Protein backbone atom coordinates (compact mmCIF):
# COMPACT_ATOMS: atom_id res chain seq x y z
CA UNK A 1 0.00 0.00 0.00
CA UNK A 2 2.89 2.31 0.47
CA UNK A 3 3.27 3.79 -2.94
CA UNK A 4 6.38 5.59 -4.05
CA UNK A 5 6.54 9.12 -2.77
CA UNK A 6 3.79 11.32 -4.18
CA UNK A 7 4.92 13.97 -6.60
CA UNK A 8 4.51 17.66 -6.06
CA UNK A 9 2.44 19.88 -8.30
CA UNK A 10 2.86 23.64 -8.39
CA UNK A 11 0.29 25.69 -10.24
CA UNK A 12 0.18 29.37 -11.18
CA UNK A 13 -3.36 30.21 -12.21
CA UNK A 14 -3.73 33.54 -13.92
CA UNK A 15 -6.36 34.76 -16.34
CA UNK A 16 -3.95 34.28 -19.23
CA UNK A 17 -2.72 30.77 -18.72
CA UNK A 18 -2.03 28.01 -16.28
CA UNK A 19 1.62 27.36 -15.58
CA UNK A 20 2.35 24.06 -13.87
CA UNK A 21 5.37 22.12 -12.69
CA UNK A 22 5.64 18.54 -11.53
CA UNK A 23 8.34 18.08 -8.93
CA UNK A 24 9.76 15.23 -6.91
CA UNK A 25 7.97 16.45 -3.81
CA UNK A 26 7.32 19.56 -1.77
CA UNK A 27 10.29 19.55 0.56
CA UNK A 28 13.62 20.90 -0.56
CA UNK A 29 15.83 19.74 -2.03
CA UNK A 30 13.47 19.03 -4.85
CA UNK A 31 13.73 18.26 -8.52
CA UNK A 32 11.55 19.85 -11.18
CA UNK A 33 10.61 16.99 -13.44
CA UNK A 34 8.37 18.65 -16.00
CA UNK A 35 6.97 22.04 -16.89
CA UNK A 36 3.77 22.60 -18.75
CA UNK A 37 1.56 25.48 -19.87
CA UNK A 38 -2.10 25.58 -20.65
CA UNK A 39 -2.96 28.90 -22.35
CA UNK A 40 -6.39 30.19 -21.41
CA UNK A 41 -7.37 32.03 -24.53
CA UNK A 42 -11.02 31.11 -24.71
CA UNK A 43 -13.46 29.50 -22.40
CA UNK A 44 -12.09 26.29 -21.14
CA UNK A 45 -14.13 23.81 -19.18
CA UNK A 46 -12.97 22.47 -15.89
CA UNK A 47 -12.76 19.00 -17.42
CA UNK A 48 -10.32 20.18 -20.08
CA UNK A 49 -8.11 21.79 -17.48
CA UNK A 50 -8.30 18.67 -15.38
CA UNK A 51 -7.22 16.59 -18.34
CA UNK A 52 -4.25 18.90 -18.75
CA UNK A 53 -3.24 18.20 -15.16
CA UNK A 54 -3.84 14.48 -15.50
CA UNK A 55 -1.30 14.43 -18.27
CA UNK A 56 1.24 16.08 -16.03
CA UNK A 57 0.72 14.11 -12.80
CA UNK A 58 -0.74 10.75 -11.86
CA UNK A 59 -3.99 11.28 -9.98
CA UNK A 60 -3.97 7.57 -9.01
CA UNK A 61 -7.70 7.33 -9.52
CA UNK A 62 -8.54 9.86 -6.87
CA UNK A 63 -10.63 12.99 -7.37
CA UNK A 64 -7.92 15.49 -6.50
CA UNK A 65 -4.22 15.98 -6.62
CA UNK A 66 -2.70 17.73 -3.64
CA UNK A 67 -0.96 20.84 -5.01
CA UNK A 68 0.34 24.25 -4.16
CA UNK A 69 -1.20 27.07 -6.13
CA UNK A 70 -0.72 30.74 -6.72
CA UNK A 71 -3.79 32.68 -7.77
CA UNK A 72 -4.83 36.18 -8.84
CA UNK A 73 -8.16 36.80 -7.13
CA UNK A 74 -10.23 39.78 -8.09
CA UNK A 75 -9.91 42.71 -5.77
CA UNK A 76 -6.50 41.62 -4.55
CA UNK A 77 -4.21 44.16 -2.98
CA UNK A 78 -0.63 44.46 -1.83
CA UNK A 79 -0.06 47.75 0.02
CA UNK A 80 2.87 49.26 1.80
CA UNK A 81 2.44 51.12 5.06
CA UNK A 82 4.90 52.88 7.30
CA UNK A 83 3.68 53.41 10.83
CA UNK A 84 4.75 56.37 12.96
CA UNK A 85 6.47 54.08 15.35
CA UNK A 86 6.99 50.43 15.93
CA UNK A 87 4.79 50.61 18.99
CA UNK A 88 1.92 52.03 17.05
CA UNK A 89 2.30 49.16 14.65
CA UNK A 90 1.71 46.65 17.43
CA UNK A 91 -1.85 47.75 17.93
CA UNK A 92 -4.04 45.49 15.81
CA UNK A 93 -7.01 47.76 16.21
CA UNK A 94 -4.99 50.60 14.82
CA UNK A 95 -3.85 48.51 11.89
CA UNK A 96 -7.42 47.47 11.23
CA UNK A 97 -8.40 51.14 11.02
CA UNK A 98 -5.50 51.78 8.66
CA UNK A 99 -6.80 49.09 6.36
CA UNK A 100 -10.23 50.60 6.32
CA UNK A 101 -9.32 54.22 6.05
CA UNK A 102 -6.19 54.24 3.93
CA UNK A 103 -6.58 51.21 1.73
CA UNK A 104 -10.36 50.84 1.57
CA UNK A 105 -10.24 47.28 2.65
CA UNK A 106 -12.96 45.92 4.92
CA UNK A 107 -11.09 43.60 7.27
CA UNK A 108 -14.24 41.59 7.97
CA UNK A 109 -14.80 40.70 4.33
CA UNK A 110 -11.20 40.18 3.38
CA UNK A 111 -8.46 37.66 4.02
CA UNK A 112 -5.47 39.76 4.95
CA UNK A 113 -1.90 38.91 5.82
CA UNK A 114 0.50 41.41 7.31
CA UNK A 115 4.16 41.03 6.43
CA UNK A 116 7.27 42.78 7.55
CA UNK A 117 8.27 44.94 4.56
CA UNK A 118 11.90 44.31 5.26
CA UNK A 119 12.04 40.60 4.67
CA UNK A 120 8.51 39.38 4.00
CA UNK A 121 8.22 37.50 7.26
CA UNK A 122 4.88 37.18 8.98
CA UNK A 123 4.27 40.21 11.09
CA UNK A 124 3.95 39.26 14.75
CA UNK A 125 2.65 42.20 16.75
CA UNK A 126 4.05 40.66 19.90
CA UNK A 127 7.65 40.43 18.85
CA UNK A 128 8.21 42.41 15.71
CA UNK A 129 10.12 45.65 15.92
CA UNK A 130 9.27 46.84 12.44
CA UNK A 131 7.11 49.83 11.59
CA UNK A 132 7.21 49.16 7.88
CA UNK A 133 4.54 46.73 6.90
CA UNK A 134 3.03 45.15 3.82
CA UNK A 135 -0.70 44.39 3.85
CA UNK A 136 -1.71 41.82 1.31
CA UNK A 137 -4.77 39.78 0.56
CA UNK A 138 -8.09 39.87 -1.23
CA UNK A 139 -11.81 39.62 -0.43
CA UNK A 140 -12.52 36.23 1.08
CA UNK A 141 -15.18 35.59 -1.55
CA UNK A 142 -12.64 36.10 -4.30
CA UNK A 143 -10.27 33.64 -2.70
CA UNK A 144 -13.16 31.23 -2.25
CA UNK A 145 -14.02 31.53 -5.94
CA UNK A 146 -10.43 30.74 -6.87
CA UNK A 147 -10.35 27.81 -4.47
CA UNK A 148 -13.57 26.39 -5.83
CA UNK A 149 -12.27 26.74 -9.35
CA UNK A 150 -9.11 24.89 -8.45
CA UNK A 151 -11.10 22.10 -6.84
CA UNK A 152 -13.28 21.79 -9.93
CA UNK A 153 -10.16 21.28 -11.99
CA UNK A 154 -9.00 18.49 -9.72
CA UNK A 155 -6.53 20.58 -7.76
CA UNK A 156 -6.61 20.23 -3.99
CA UNK A 157 -4.79 23.37 -2.80
CA UNK A 158 -2.66 22.45 0.13
CA UNK A 159 -1.39 26.00 -0.10
CA UNK A 160 -3.15 28.79 -1.98
CA UNK A 161 -1.03 31.87 -2.20
CA UNK A 162 -1.43 35.34 -3.59
CA UNK A 163 0.79 35.18 -6.66
CA UNK A 164 1.36 38.92 -6.62
CA UNK A 165 3.15 38.91 -3.32
CA UNK A 166 4.77 35.53 -3.89
CA UNK A 167 6.30 36.86 -7.11
CA UNK A 168 7.54 39.89 -5.22
CA UNK A 169 9.22 37.55 -2.82
CA UNK A 170 10.85 35.72 -5.70
CA UNK A 171 12.16 38.90 -7.27
CA UNK A 172 13.42 40.15 -3.94
CA UNK A 173 15.22 36.89 -3.31
CA UNK A 174 16.61 36.90 -6.85
CA UNK A 175 17.99 40.36 -6.23
CA UNK A 176 19.63 39.17 -3.02
CA UNK A 177 21.17 36.18 -4.70
CA UNK A 178 22.52 38.14 -7.64
CA UNK A 179 23.54 41.02 -5.40
CA UNK A 180 21.49 43.55 -7.32
CA UNK A 181 21.71 46.65 -5.22
CA UNK A 182 19.77 49.02 -7.44
CA UNK A 183 16.02 49.35 -6.95
CA UNK A 184 13.82 47.29 -9.22
CA UNK A 185 10.45 48.32 -10.58
CA UNK A 186 7.93 45.46 -10.53
CA UNK A 187 4.88 45.76 -12.68
CA UNK A 188 1.92 43.41 -12.71
CA UNK A 189 -0.60 44.10 -15.46
CA UNK A 190 -3.82 42.16 -15.81
CA UNK A 191 -7.21 42.78 -17.38
CA UNK A 192 -8.90 44.61 -14.57
CA UNK A 193 -6.08 46.14 -12.61
CA UNK A 194 -2.38 46.68 -12.31
CA UNK A 195 0.11 46.83 -9.47
CA UNK A 196 3.29 48.87 -9.27
CA UNK A 197 6.00 47.94 -6.78
CA UNK A 198 9.50 49.13 -6.13
CA UNK A 199 11.87 46.75 -4.41
CA UNK A 200 15.15 47.99 -3.05
CA UNK A 201 17.69 45.58 -1.67
CA UNK A 202 15.02 43.01 -1.07
CA UNK A 203 12.63 45.30 0.76
CA UNK A 204 9.35 46.56 -0.53
CA UNK A 205 9.39 50.32 -0.47
CA UNK A 206 6.55 51.20 -2.81
CA UNK A 207 3.32 49.33 -3.43
CA UNK A 208 0.74 51.13 -5.49
CA UNK A 209 -2.37 49.82 -7.14
CA UNK A 210 -3.64 51.07 -10.50
CA UNK A 211 -7.43 50.85 -10.80
CA UNK A 212 -7.50 49.96 -14.47
CA UNK A 213 -5.83 47.29 -16.53
CA UNK A 214 -5.70 45.87 -20.04
CA UNK A 215 -9.46 46.18 -20.37
CA UNK A 216 -9.08 49.94 -20.52
CA UNK A 217 -7.21 49.57 -23.78
CA UNK A 218 -9.99 47.94 -25.80
CA UNK A 219 -12.13 51.03 -26.33
CA UNK A 220 -9.01 52.88 -27.52
CA UNK A 221 -8.13 50.06 -29.86
CA UNK A 222 -11.61 49.84 -31.19
CA UNK A 223 -11.63 53.51 -31.99
CA UNK A 224 -8.17 53.44 -33.40
CA UNK A 225 -8.81 50.61 -35.82
CA UNK A 226 -12.46 51.33 -36.40
CA UNK A 227 -13.51 47.95 -35.14
CA UNK A 228 -17.08 46.83 -34.65
CA UNK A 229 -17.05 46.53 -30.90
CA UNK A 230 -14.88 46.02 -27.86
CA UNK A 231 -15.18 42.24 -28.12
CA UNK A 232 -13.53 42.16 -31.52
CA UNK A 233 -10.91 44.57 -30.20
CA UNK A 234 -10.22 42.16 -27.41
CA UNK A 235 -9.98 39.23 -29.79
CA UNK A 236 -7.52 41.09 -31.93
CA UNK A 237 -5.59 42.13 -28.90
CA UNK A 238 -4.88 38.59 -27.88
CA UNK A 239 -4.31 37.19 -31.32
CA UNK A 240 -0.81 36.98 -32.62
CA UNK A 241 -1.58 38.49 -35.92
CA UNK A 242 -1.34 42.20 -35.34
CA UNK A 243 1.86 44.04 -34.73
CA UNK A 244 1.19 46.44 -31.91
CA UNK A 245 4.69 47.77 -31.76
CA UNK A 246 3.77 51.03 -33.44
CA UNK A 247 0.50 51.56 -31.68
CA UNK A 248 1.85 50.39 -28.38
CA UNK A 249 2.84 53.65 -26.73
CA UNK A 250 -0.50 55.27 -27.63
CA UNK A 251 -2.51 52.45 -26.22
CA UNK A 252 -0.48 52.30 -23.06
CA UNK A 253 -0.11 55.97 -22.44
CA UNK A 254 -2.24 56.04 -19.32
CA UNK A 255 -0.39 53.15 -17.87
CA UNK A 256 3.06 54.49 -18.61
CA UNK A 257 2.03 57.80 -17.08
CA UNK A 258 1.24 56.05 -13.84
CA UNK A 259 4.52 54.21 -13.96
CA UNK A 260 6.51 57.32 -14.60
CA UNK A 261 4.77 59.11 -11.77
CA UNK A 262 5.70 56.39 -9.30
CA UNK A 263 9.27 55.98 -10.44
CA UNK A 264 9.85 59.69 -10.68
CA UNK A 265 8.58 60.35 -7.20
CA UNK A 266 10.63 57.54 -5.75
CA UNK A 267 13.86 58.57 -7.46
CA UNK A 268 13.46 62.13 -6.25
CA UNK A 269 12.66 61.04 -2.73
CA UNK A 270 15.46 58.53 -2.35
CA UNK A 271 18.01 59.82 -4.78
CA UNK A 272 18.36 56.34 -6.20
CA UNK A 273 18.08 55.40 -9.81
CA UNK A 274 15.90 52.52 -10.89
CA UNK A 275 17.63 50.45 -13.54
CA UNK A 276 15.42 47.52 -14.36
CA UNK A 277 11.77 46.68 -14.65
CA UNK A 278 10.34 43.26 -13.89
CA UNK A 279 7.06 42.50 -15.62
CA UNK A 280 5.23 39.49 -14.29
CA UNK A 281 2.38 37.35 -15.55
CA UNK A 282 2.05 38.97 -18.99
CA UNK A 283 1.72 36.31 -21.69
CA UNK A 284 4.19 35.94 -24.51
CA UNK A 285 2.06 37.35 -27.21
CA UNK A 286 1.81 40.62 -25.26
CA UNK A 287 5.54 41.03 -25.34
CA UNK A 288 5.09 44.37 -27.09
CA UNK A 289 3.64 45.69 -23.80
CA UNK A 290 6.92 44.95 -22.05
CA UNK A 291 8.88 46.60 -24.84
CA UNK A 292 6.69 49.68 -24.76
CA UNK A 293 7.05 50.02 -21.01
CA UNK A 294 10.77 49.49 -21.14
CA UNK A 295 11.20 52.05 -23.91
CA UNK A 296 9.03 54.70 -22.39
CA UNK A 297 10.67 54.42 -19.00
CA UNK A 298 14.14 53.82 -20.27
CA UNK A 299 14.50 50.76 -18.11
CA UNK A 300 16.04 47.42 -18.87
CA UNK A 301 13.63 44.51 -18.93
CA UNK A 302 14.75 42.08 -16.31
CA UNK A 303 15.08 38.60 -17.73
CA UNK A 304 15.92 36.45 -14.76
CA UNK A 305 18.49 33.69 -15.16
CA UNK A 306 16.43 31.07 -13.50
CA UNK A 307 18.64 28.00 -13.40
CA UNK A 308 21.37 29.33 -11.14
CA UNK A 309 18.90 31.05 -8.87
CA UNK A 310 16.82 27.89 -8.50
CA UNK A 311 19.91 25.87 -7.70
CA UNK A 312 20.73 28.25 -4.90
CA UNK A 313 17.30 27.50 -3.49
CA UNK A 314 18.11 23.78 -3.70
CA UNK A 315 15.73 23.32 -6.59
CA UNK A 316 17.26 21.15 -9.29
CA UNK A 317 16.16 20.65 -12.83
CA UNK A 318 15.69 17.18 -14.20
CA UNK A 319 17.21 16.12 -17.48
CA UNK A 320 15.47 17.74 -20.38
CA UNK A 321 13.91 20.58 -18.40
CA UNK A 322 14.87 23.86 -19.96
CA UNK A 323 14.34 27.13 -18.16
CA UNK A 324 16.71 29.36 -20.07
CA UNK A 325 14.07 30.35 -22.58
CA UNK A 326 11.34 30.94 -20.04
CA UNK A 327 10.27 34.53 -19.55
CA UNK A 328 9.75 36.56 -16.42
CA UNK A 329 6.14 35.43 -16.24
CA UNK A 330 7.28 32.05 -14.96
CA UNK A 331 8.73 33.76 -11.89
CA UNK A 332 5.44 33.40 -10.06
CA UNK A 333 5.45 29.63 -10.45
CA UNK A 334 9.04 29.17 -9.31
CA UNK A 335 8.58 31.54 -6.41
CA UNK A 336 5.96 29.15 -5.06
CA UNK A 337 8.70 26.60 -4.61
CA UNK A 338 11.18 28.85 -2.90
CA UNK A 339 11.80 28.68 0.81
CA UNK A 340 13.29 32.14 1.01
CA UNK A 341 13.57 32.17 4.76
CA UNK A 342 16.03 29.34 4.58
CA UNK A 343 18.53 31.29 2.57
CA UNK A 344 21.54 32.10 4.69
CA UNK A 345 21.65 35.79 4.04
CA UNK A 346 22.43 38.22 6.74
CA UNK A 347 21.47 41.28 4.70
CA UNK A 348 20.63 44.17 6.86
CA UNK A 349 17.07 45.40 6.68
Amino acid at each position, binding site marked *: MLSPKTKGLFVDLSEFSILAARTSGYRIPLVIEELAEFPLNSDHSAEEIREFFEQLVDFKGSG*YFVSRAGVYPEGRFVRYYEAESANKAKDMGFLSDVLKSEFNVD*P*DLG*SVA*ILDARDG*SDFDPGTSLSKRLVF*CGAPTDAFQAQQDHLLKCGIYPERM*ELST*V*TTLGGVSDYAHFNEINAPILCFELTSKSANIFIINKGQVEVARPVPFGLDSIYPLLQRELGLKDEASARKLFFSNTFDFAEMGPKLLRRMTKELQASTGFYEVQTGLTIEAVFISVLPKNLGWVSKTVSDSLGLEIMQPKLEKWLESLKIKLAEGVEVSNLGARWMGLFSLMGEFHLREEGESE
Partner: protein
Amino acid sequence: MSKRKKEVQPFWRPNFVIPAELPDIKVVRTGFIINFIAITLALCVAFFLLQREYRAYVLGHTIADMEQQIRVANADDVENLKSSEAFRSAAQYVVEVEKFYSAPLQAHTFLYSLAQIKPEDLIFNSVSLSETVVKQNGKNALAYNINITGDAKSLTVLDDFKKILEDADLLKVEGFDLQIDETLQGRDEKTGIFPYRLAISLTPRVKAAPKSGEEGGDAS
Protein backbone atom coordinates in the same frame (compact mmCIF):
# COMPACT_ATOMS: atom_id res chain seq x y z
CA MET B 1 -9.71 40.70 10.13
CA SER B 2 -9.07 37.17 9.19
CA LYS B 3 -5.52 36.05 9.13
CA ARG B 4 -4.22 32.81 7.73
CA LYS B 5 -1.34 31.42 9.70
CA LYS B 6 0.70 28.23 9.47
CA GLU B 7 3.55 27.31 11.79
CA VAL B 8 6.50 29.02 10.15
CA GLN B 9 5.15 30.88 7.17
CA PRO B 10 7.71 31.11 4.39
CA PHE B 11 8.75 34.68 3.70
CA TRP B 12 6.67 36.59 1.21
CA ARG B 13 4.33 33.62 0.90
CA PRO B 14 1.34 33.69 3.21
CA ASN B 15 -1.19 30.91 2.73
CA PHE B 16 -4.71 32.07 1.93
CA VAL B 17 -6.37 28.71 1.54
CA ILE B 18 -9.81 28.37 3.18
CA PRO B 19 -9.63 24.99 4.96
CA ALA B 20 -13.27 24.91 6.00
CA GLU B 21 -14.37 24.70 2.41
CA LEU B 22 -11.90 22.07 1.32
CA PRO B 23 -13.24 18.63 0.60
CA ASP B 24 -12.06 15.79 2.73
CA ILE B 25 -9.61 14.01 0.48
CA LYS B 26 -8.55 11.54 3.08
CA VAL B 27 -11.68 9.78 2.00
CA VAL B 28 -9.69 8.57 -0.95
CA ARG B 29 -7.16 6.73 1.10
CA THR B 30 -9.33 5.81 4.01
CA GLY B 31 -11.70 4.37 1.47
CA PHE B 32 -9.14 1.78 0.65
CA ILE B 33 -8.46 0.98 4.28
CA ILE B 34 -12.14 0.79 5.11
CA ASN B 35 -12.80 -1.52 2.21
CA PHE B 36 -9.78 -3.58 3.07
CA ILE B 37 -10.83 -3.95 6.69
CA ALA B 38 -14.43 -4.61 5.73
CA ILE B 39 -13.46 -7.32 3.26
CA THR B 40 -11.02 -8.89 5.70
CA LEU B 41 -13.59 -8.97 8.48
CA ALA B 42 -16.25 -10.30 6.17
CA LEU B 43 -13.91 -13.03 4.96
CA CYS B 44 -12.93 -13.94 8.50
CA VAL B 45 -16.50 -14.16 9.66
CA ALA B 46 -17.59 -16.06 6.57
CA PHE B 47 -14.65 -18.41 6.89
CA PHE B 48 -15.38 -18.97 10.54
CA LEU B 49 -18.99 -19.72 9.76
CA LEU B 50 -18.08 -22.11 6.94
CA GLN B 51 -15.58 -23.86 9.11
CA ARG B 52 -18.15 -24.31 11.84
CA GLU B 53 -20.70 -25.61 9.40
CA TYR B 54 -18.21 -27.96 7.83
CA ARG B 55 -17.21 -29.30 11.20
CA ALA B 56 -20.83 -29.72 12.16
CA TYR B 57 -21.40 -31.57 8.91
CA VAL B 58 -18.42 -33.85 9.44
CA LEU B 59 -19.46 -34.34 13.03
CA GLY B 60 -22.92 -35.32 11.89
CA HIS B 61 -21.46 -38.00 9.70
CA THR B 62 -19.11 -39.19 12.38
CA ILE B 63 -22.00 -39.43 14.80
CA ALA B 64 -24.02 -41.45 12.31
CA ASP B 65 -21.09 -43.83 11.88
CA MET B 66 -20.62 -44.12 15.59
CA GLU B 67 -24.30 -44.84 16.14
CA GLN B 68 -24.12 -47.52 13.52
CA GLN B 69 -21.05 -48.96 15.19
CA ILE B 70 -22.81 -48.98 18.52
CA ARG B 71 -25.92 -50.55 17.09
CA VAL B 72 -23.86 -53.40 15.69
CA ALA B 73 -21.94 -53.93 18.85
CA ASN B 74 -24.83 -53.43 21.17
CA ALA B 75 -26.28 -56.91 21.05
CA ASP B 76 -22.99 -58.47 22.03
CA ASP B 77 -22.46 -55.83 24.64
CA VAL B 78 -25.75 -56.61 26.28
CA GLU B 79 -24.74 -60.26 26.35
CA ASN B 80 -21.41 -59.35 27.87
CA LEU B 81 -23.04 -57.24 30.49
CA LYS B 82 -25.47 -60.01 31.34
CA SER B 83 -22.66 -62.50 31.70
CA SER B 84 -20.71 -60.00 33.70
CA GLU B 85 -23.64 -59.51 36.02
CA ALA B 86 -24.14 -63.25 36.32
CA PHE B 87 -20.52 -63.66 37.19
CA ARG B 88 -20.63 -60.89 39.72
CA SER B 89 -23.66 -62.17 41.53
CA ALA B 90 -22.27 -65.71 41.59
CA ALA B 91 -18.95 -64.43 42.78
CA GLN B 92 -20.66 -62.81 45.73
CA TYR B 93 -21.22 -66.23 47.18
CA VAL B 94 -17.61 -67.13 46.90
CA VAL B 95 -16.64 -63.82 48.40
CA GLU B 96 -18.90 -64.42 51.33
CA VAL B 97 -17.40 -67.79 51.98
CA GLU B 98 -13.99 -66.22 52.03
CA LYS B 99 -15.26 -63.54 54.36
CA PHE B 100 -16.73 -66.20 56.55
CA TYR B 101 -13.42 -67.93 56.91
CA SER B 102 -11.12 -64.93 57.08
CA ALA B 103 -9.27 -64.79 60.34
CA PRO B 104 -5.65 -64.37 61.28
CA LEU B 105 -5.61 -67.75 62.99
CA GLN B 106 -7.23 -71.07 62.33
CA ALA B 107 -7.92 -73.17 65.35
CA HIS B 108 -6.46 -76.43 64.14
CA THR B 109 -3.25 -75.06 62.68
CA PHE B 110 -2.79 -72.77 65.61
CA LEU B 111 -3.10 -75.54 68.12
CA TYR B 112 -0.81 -77.79 66.12
CA SER B 113 1.90 -75.17 65.76
CA LEU B 114 1.58 -74.16 69.38
CA ALA B 115 2.09 -77.70 70.44
CA GLN B 116 5.16 -77.91 68.28
CA ILE B 117 6.87 -74.92 69.76
CA LYS B 118 5.97 -75.61 73.32
CA PRO B 119 9.20 -76.13 75.24
CA GLU B 120 9.73 -79.14 77.45
CA ASP B 121 9.93 -77.29 80.67
CA LEU B 122 6.72 -75.46 80.15
CA ILE B 123 3.40 -76.93 81.08
CA PHE B 124 0.15 -75.84 79.51
CA ASN B 125 -2.83 -76.13 81.77
CA SER B 126 -5.27 -74.39 79.50
CA VAL B 127 -5.31 -72.71 76.10
CA SER B 128 -8.12 -70.52 74.88
CA LEU B 129 -8.74 -68.51 71.77
CA SER B 130 -11.47 -65.92 71.31
CA GLU B 131 -12.28 -63.10 69.01
CA THR B 132 -13.60 -59.78 70.23
CA VAL B 133 -14.87 -56.64 68.65
CA VAL B 134 -12.84 -53.53 69.37
CA LYS B 135 -13.46 -49.99 68.34
CA GLN B 136 -10.84 -48.36 66.21
CA ASN B 137 -11.14 -44.96 64.55
CA GLY B 138 -14.81 -45.09 65.31
CA LYS B 139 -15.22 -48.36 63.43
CA ASN B 140 -15.54 -51.88 64.70
CA ALA B 141 -12.67 -54.31 64.17
CA LEU B 142 -11.84 -57.81 65.25
CA ALA B 143 -9.11 -58.57 67.72
CA TYR B 144 -8.00 -61.97 68.80
CA ASN B 145 -7.05 -63.00 72.28
CA ILE B 146 -5.16 -66.12 73.22
CA ASN B 147 -4.75 -67.09 76.86
CA ILE B 148 -2.37 -69.72 77.99
CA THR B 149 -2.13 -70.71 81.62
CA GLY B 150 0.30 -73.20 82.99
CA ASP B 151 3.37 -73.82 85.00
CA ALA B 152 6.93 -72.98 84.20
CA LYS B 153 9.98 -74.62 85.60
CA SER B 154 11.82 -71.36 85.71
CA LEU B 155 11.32 -67.81 84.71
CA THR B 156 13.90 -68.11 81.99
CA VAL B 157 11.92 -70.86 80.40
CA LEU B 158 8.94 -68.56 80.34
CA ASP B 159 10.94 -65.72 78.93
CA ASP B 160 12.39 -67.97 76.25
CA PHE B 161 8.96 -69.13 75.34
CA LYS B 162 7.75 -65.59 75.12
CA LYS B 163 10.58 -64.85 72.77
CA ILE B 164 9.76 -67.87 70.70
CA LEU B 165 6.18 -66.72 70.47
CA GLU B 166 7.23 -63.29 69.39
CA ASP B 167 9.45 -64.64 66.68
CA ALA B 168 7.15 -67.41 65.59
CA ASP B 169 5.59 -67.26 62.15
CA LEU B 170 2.47 -68.52 63.80
CA LEU B 171 1.72 -65.18 65.36
CA LYS B 172 3.12 -63.00 62.62
CA VAL B 173 -0.07 -61.93 60.91
CA GLU B 174 -0.16 -59.16 58.37
CA GLY B 175 -2.05 -56.14 59.56
CA PHE B 176 -2.06 -57.25 63.17
CA ASP B 177 0.00 -56.09 66.08
CA LEU B 178 1.20 -58.70 68.50
CA GLN B 179 1.33 -58.13 72.20
CA ILE B 180 2.23 -60.64 74.82
CA ASP B 181 1.60 -59.98 78.49
CA GLU B 182 2.46 -62.23 81.33
CA THR B 183 1.20 -62.43 84.86
CA LEU B 184 3.06 -64.44 87.33
CA GLN B 185 2.14 -65.77 90.65
CA GLY B 186 4.77 -66.43 93.11
CA ARG B 187 6.78 -69.61 93.06
CA ASP B 188 4.88 -72.56 94.37
CA GLU B 189 6.61 -73.61 97.61
CA LYS B 190 5.82 -77.24 97.25
CA THR B 191 6.60 -77.88 93.59
CA GLY B 192 9.13 -75.13 92.99
CA ILE B 193 7.48 -74.10 89.77
CA PHE B 194 5.96 -70.89 88.68
CA PRO B 195 2.32 -70.69 87.67
CA TYR B 196 1.96 -68.24 84.86
CA ARG B 197 -0.63 -66.76 82.62
CA LEU B 198 0.18 -65.49 79.11
CA ALA B 199 -2.23 -63.16 77.41
CA ILE B 200 -1.49 -62.85 73.71
CA SER B 201 -3.47 -60.31 71.77
CA LEU B 202 -3.58 -59.70 68.09
CA THR B 203 -5.07 -56.27 67.36
CA PRO B 204 -5.60 -54.97 63.91
CA ARG B 205 -3.02 -52.38 62.99
CA VAL B 206 -4.49 -48.89 62.93
CA LYS B 207 -4.16 -47.43 59.47
CA ALA B 208 -2.78 -43.89 59.39
CA ALA B 209 -5.69 -42.49 57.38
CA PRO B 210 -8.91 -44.23 56.54
CA LYS B 211 -8.67 -45.37 52.96
CA SER B 212 -11.42 -46.49 50.65
CA GLY B 213 -9.49 -49.73 50.61
CA GLU B 214 -11.14 -50.55 53.92
CA GLU B 215 -14.21 -51.50 52.01
CA GLY B 216 -12.30 -53.44 49.43
CA GLY B 217 -10.54 -55.34 52.09
CA ASP B 218 -13.40 -57.78 52.06
CA ALA B 219 -13.12 -58.57 48.41
CA SER B 220 -9.57 -59.71 48.66
